């Protein structure tokens, strides 16, 4: 599938700030089923800083903006050709051992209610089946309902509410998977949504669980499926904060407001044959 991405994040400050520093995870992962045809990230008035591929395989890029500025815009545009890999992350070079993804973090702490979701699962016998079950149970227990949680909500809190968004569901899958001994991580990326989908759904998040013998496998409890050719994978981390597409900070007292728009469109397959 040929996916075209246009992702604009606009930061507005109520009074000029002296400077902005950001750390981005905004490049598509280098893996099977994702071919980057063109990709560009710009930051208004920004100076590109150090960039490197980290141990998890993500391209991390620093940016700085010298103030005073009232507003900055991060603009991502590009086109990626995708192929369905049935949710399995293949051909992805990384050095971080899976065991490192068993570590607990605050938003992915499993409480009694989350632990109860693991009841009867036998990951020692069939880890893949267990992971599928975890994702399905989370989809049922935390019903996708925008506006009921915030970016700070933990998996346990969303579980208590019974509602949440993709971030909450991914955190919950991670919490339960780690509880039953399966390494799990948070993945951020883009998703081609149907005509009925709202624009903000296109910036998406899901979970990956490590299955011995198979590797990292994606699970998207929000859509009750494994990632396929509608998905573009960008980066991963122990939880949403560690996998954030943009982490930033400002110098100066300006209060920040944020405006995000993301569109992911399917382009006509370019069947240009070169003569």
């Amino acid at each position, binding site marked *: 599938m040929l996916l075209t991405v246009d992702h604009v994040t606009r930061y507005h400050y109520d009074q000029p700030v002296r400077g902005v*520093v950001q750390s981005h995870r905004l490049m598509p992962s280098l893996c099977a089923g994702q071919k980057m045809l063109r990709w560009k990230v710009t930051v208004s008035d920004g100076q590109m800083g150090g960039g490197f591929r980290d141990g998890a395989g993500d391209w991390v890029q620093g940016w700085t903006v010298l103030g005073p500025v009232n507003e900055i815009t991060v603009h991502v545009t590009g086109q990626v050709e995708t192929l369905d890999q049935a949710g399995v992350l293949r051909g992805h070079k990384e050095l971080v051992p899976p065991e490192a993804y068993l570590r607990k973090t605050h938003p992915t702490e499993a409480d009694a209610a989350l632990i109860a979701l693991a009841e009867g699962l036998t990951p020692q016998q069939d880890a893949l089946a267990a992971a599928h079950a975890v994702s399905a149970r989370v989809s049922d227990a935390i019903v996708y309902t925008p506006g009921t949680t915030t970016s700070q909500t933990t998996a346990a809190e969303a579980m208590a509410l019974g509602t949440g968004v993709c971030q909450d569901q991914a955190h919950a899958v991670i919490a339960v998977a780690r509880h039953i001994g399966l390494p799990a991580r948070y993945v951020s990326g883009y998703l081609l949504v149907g005509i009925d989908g709202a624009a903000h759904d296109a910036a998406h998040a899901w979970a990956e669980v490590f299955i011995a013998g198979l590797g990292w496998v994606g699970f998207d409890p929000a859509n009750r499926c494994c990632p396929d050719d509608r998905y573009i994978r960008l980066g991963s981390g122990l939880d949403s904060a560690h996998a954030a597409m943009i982490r930033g900070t400002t110098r100066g007292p300006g209060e920040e407001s944020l405006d995000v728009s993301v569109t992911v469109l399917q382009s006509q397959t370019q069947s240009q044959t070169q003569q």
Partner: protein
Amino acid sequence: MTSYFNEMYQGHSVRAPYARLQDWMTAMPAELRQMKQAEAEALFRRIGITFAVYGEGGDPDRLIPFDMFPRVFSGAEWAKLERGIKQRARALNAFLVDVYGRGEIVRAGRIPARLVYLNEAYEKAVVGIVPPKGVYSHIVGIDLVRTGPDEFFVLEDNCRTPSGVSYMLENREIMMRMFPDLFRENRIQPVDSYPEILRRTLASVAPQKCDREPTVVILTPGHYNSAYYEHSFLADLMGVELVEGQDLFVEGEFVFMRTTEGPRRVDVIYRRLDDAFIDPLCFRPDSMLGVPGLMDVYRSGGVSICSAPGAGVADDKAVYTYVPEMIRFYLGEEPILNNVPTWQCGKAEDLKYVLAHLNELVVKEVHGSGGYGMLVGPKASADQVELFRARITANPGNYIAQPTLALSTTPTFVAEGIAPRHVDLRPYCLVGERIELVPGGLTRVALTEGSLVVNSSQGGGVKDTWVLAE
């Protein structure tokens, strides 16, 4: 009754390194001693060297007690220690490069994966990053105790930001001022080159992108930190700037410091700040002490951070058990210095032993430091023992236990005159392009009679440490 090795006496004869101190000691009348002690205290006050004790309240500018009776090593004793310490520093750094790389030691089954990769001090963010010269821990503080003429044990390693070296330098300075004769009569190796060697070590690990004489700074959490005095002291002696997070900023690919002449690029940061606080964009987002964006500059080769983020996984008390294994695995050598036998409460059979022998053992928290969260079984009350039994049972993986060691003693000035008190030793090994160790270190002394806890935060004092030239 345990017998302790007294470093000055062997039976009734004086051991060679202390030979000249015997006369000095006996010739000093009590009044002179008291006068000198008062003089020493006044000097420490004037210099301003004080030690704030975490969690104890009271006077934050309390002086750390200084004992004038030096602790002495012969050149031969030191030569062996030096080899052992350098060997350990090499192995610890090899381990760090490995576990943030391919993890061969884990793959080879020589250390459990969980102990390394689930460790709180393991920083996923630096996997795949090889710091300049392959050095993660540039200042390795190794805590040693002695139990006999030839018996030394490593109590723990400190790979992050070991403190106390300012006392090593100040203790010497003060002894030389007060007892110049002693330094004429004994051939004592100097330690005053430490700041210069430290500066050279830091400059030797300048980042790839540095193409000129590197600018080195010390990054401090600020004057509320208990070791702030040491930070400013070392900056002074090295002739480098002492900065706080707010004095530094990231622009483009580099880190700069604000100066009166405008921004100046910084190449090497000797940070005395924990990993969690150094960059809110990578670690704790609420940290106000660090430098936003620092980790991206570091990881792309624009600045060096000493010690490197992630170095702490090598000095964890549970990982400590495996240091002899590291020495064999990476260096193909046998350890010159021994570990103290250690029980890991996370292992079922060890836990059983520890709970059955709490009265005999020293129990420590895996991540604790400064002598807090520690049980000294033979000295503890029944209540304390039961408290620890409950804590260990609740979270066994958080505790290790070691036998109570018969720490050596050295003569120490006390109210009644001179008496033996227990001591340990922390030398500071510097690792950069070369591995260097100044002949000496910080000797800590448990001033309370019979006490085996030498931590300055628990009422310990310090002594000048001599290494004699052969």
